[in-house]
């Protein structure tokens, strides 16, 4: 037909614009009403509308699978790693996810979404996914992120979670210290003599150093998710009390390891060869004069702990008290081989406090 026009030409554009604007204004009013007047019911008892749970949970699973990319260390099956992870789990996670062989608490089960029991949840994820979940947490679910920026101390928890599915209550109690469950001794052992090579022994440290370390953990000056959790509940009085509660190192029996690595470490620690590395002994002993009690003794400390800490120092990621700068300067030129030798040397020494004759006189 001669006068036929394309249908779209017959739309009245100003009317459409007015309709869209009206809808936008209505939407804005609705949003203000929901947010500002509280029309949406946030009650956990009411729960989600049908289908919403499925959408949220699928989003969550796929989001984790897409992002989990951390490479697990070779030590995931190490019993010390598993025990350290169990200790942290007991402190920070058990209240929601339950313990092996026990049900979840009534309060935990009343959460929305309900935190799964750990023995059901852990086997569903790979090690990298568990690492991501613990590190990042999950938005709007009650699952917190790791309370530190450092990430390597998440792996002990992953190591524990990989074993948790088949664990019974007795095995878990063994790992978490039985009666001393929850306190310092759970991980650091009776009188601070930790038998777990992943956990430092405290009996060789001065009260000054222990107090400074606990304050640094609590205040975020030293980076560790595990110790941040442990120290976050302590006030200054509690720190002062705990710092004095670890005794002198007891007599140590048995042959101490020796060998070329230990000899190399001894040379490095005493002589600063090649004028490159500061002599460790001038601060950490053995030293013929009284040392500042704020310096930690490392004689007899666990080798794997010393290695991990020296690497953190060298890489500039180890915080601490007001003297941390000294150690940043001292460690910055250490090669991996130097670190291995120094850790072997100090681990092979008899455990002694910083000023052996003065330990029993707290200041």
């Amino acid at each position, binding site marked *: 037909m001669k006068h036929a026009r394309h249908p779209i030409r017959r739309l009245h554009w100003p009317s459409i614009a007015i309709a869209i604007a009206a809808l936008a204004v209505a939407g804005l009013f609705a949003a203000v009403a929901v947010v500002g007047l509280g029309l949406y019911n946030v009650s956990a008892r009411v729960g989600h509308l049908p289908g919403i749970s499925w959408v949220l949970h699928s989003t969550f699973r796929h989001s984790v699978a897409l992002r989990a990319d951390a490479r697990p260390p070779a030590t995931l099956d190490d019993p010390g790693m598993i025990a350290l992870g169990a200790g942290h789990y007991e402190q920070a996670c058990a209240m929601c996810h339950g313990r092996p062989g026990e049900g979840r608490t009534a309060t935990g089960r009343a959460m929305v979404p309900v935190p799964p029991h750990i023995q059901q949840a852990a086997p569903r994820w790979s090690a990298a996914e568990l690492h991501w979940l613990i590190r990042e947490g999950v938005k709007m679910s009650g699952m917190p992120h790791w309370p530190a920026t450092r990430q390597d101390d998440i792996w002990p928890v992953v190591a524990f979670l990989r074993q948790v599915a088949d664990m019974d209550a007795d095995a878990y109690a063994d790992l978490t210290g039985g009666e001393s469950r929850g306190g310092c001794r759970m991980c650091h052992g009776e009188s601070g003599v930790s038998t777990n090579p992943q956990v430092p022994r405290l009996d060789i440290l001065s009260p000054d150093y222990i107090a400074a370390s606990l304050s640094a953990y609590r205040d975020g000056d030293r980076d560790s998710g595990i110790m941040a959790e442990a120290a976050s509940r302590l006030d200054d009085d509690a720190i002062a009390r705990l710092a004095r509660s670890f005794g002198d190192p007891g007599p140590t029996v048995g042959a101490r390891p020796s060998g070329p690595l230990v000899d190399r470490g001894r040379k490095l620690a005493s*002589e*600063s060869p090649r*004028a*490159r*590395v*500061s*002599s*460790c*002994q*001038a*601060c950490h002993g053995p*030293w*013929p*004069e*009284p*040392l*500042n009690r*704020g*310096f930690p003794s490392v004689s007899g400390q666990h080798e794997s702990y010393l290695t991990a800490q020296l690497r953190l120092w060298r890489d500039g990621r180890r915080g601490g008290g*007001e*003297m941390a*700068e*000294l150690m*940043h*300067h*001292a460690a910055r030129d250490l090669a991996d081989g130097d670190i291995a030798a120094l850790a072997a040397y100090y681990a092979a020494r008899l455990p002694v406090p910083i000023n052996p004759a003065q330990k029993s006189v707290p200041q």
Partner: protein
Amino acid sequence: MRAALPFAALAFLAGCDGRQSVLSPAGRDAEVLATLFWWMLGGAVVLWLMVNGLMLYASRLRPRRHPKHLAEWIIFGGGVAFPTIVLAGLLTYALVQMPQQRAPGQGLTLRVTGESWWWRVEYWPDGATEPVVAANEVRLPAGSRSEIALAANGVIHSFWIPALGGKTDMIPGRDTRMSLEPVASGEYRGQCAEFCGASHAQMAMAAVVMEPENFQAWLQQQAEPAAEPATDEARRGRGVFLAEGCGGCHTVRGTPARGRVGPDLTHLASRVTLAAGVLPMERQALRDWIRDPDAIKPGARMPGYDHLSDADLRALAVYLEGLE
């Protein structure tokens, strides 16, 4: 304004006098270099006047057509032949001087290592089996040629005491050498002359030329262990020094402190400067330096001891200023 310019230039020339100047030589090598400089300057002035004079002559004084052979002589003679002769003469003169600058030293050898940013100095008298270790200051006997062995730790530096001689680069992994024969006793200043990092400009040194018998006495004194603290406060300072880990990097001979990362402090207070030519050797400067070295020498390897109490810091400074 224009009339003031020459006076301003004169004011700048005043900087050519003094402790760190090629133009006031105090050593044989520096004298040769200063003479060479004046000859070079003379040659350059003659060349400049000649070339510009010819140009002025051809373009302003006689701005007309010149006969062909005269024009060719002006261009070839003034532009090619004359500069070639003058420059070749100066080059020959300079080349003849060079071997002398590398003459082997006799008697004393200094081994100087460039660190970031200070100088490790070892004195090896003839026949010595171990060196007398010092730092951040070079002392030389007047009237004899001392051998100077140079090395560097980490990055390139360059050893230069302008009043005594030329400069020589210090290169990691490679030994370089030079020699110096000072003639006039006195106190001069050296400076790292190769960019070596954040505090390159703060890497200087005092250079002290002494009469030979004074030098011998000084060297013997430097070989001694450190003085025992004389007062209660100094003794307290020694305790602070040994308790705070200073010995991890520094040596004070006669104490357990045997570190080799930083300068040997056995006779620290006998030096005229602190922190490699940057601060005067005074108590307040010692305190400022120990509290925050990075503020004075950015990037310095030494950590700040700002956790020390004022009393401890003061005692430490008193102890150190007793290490003469």
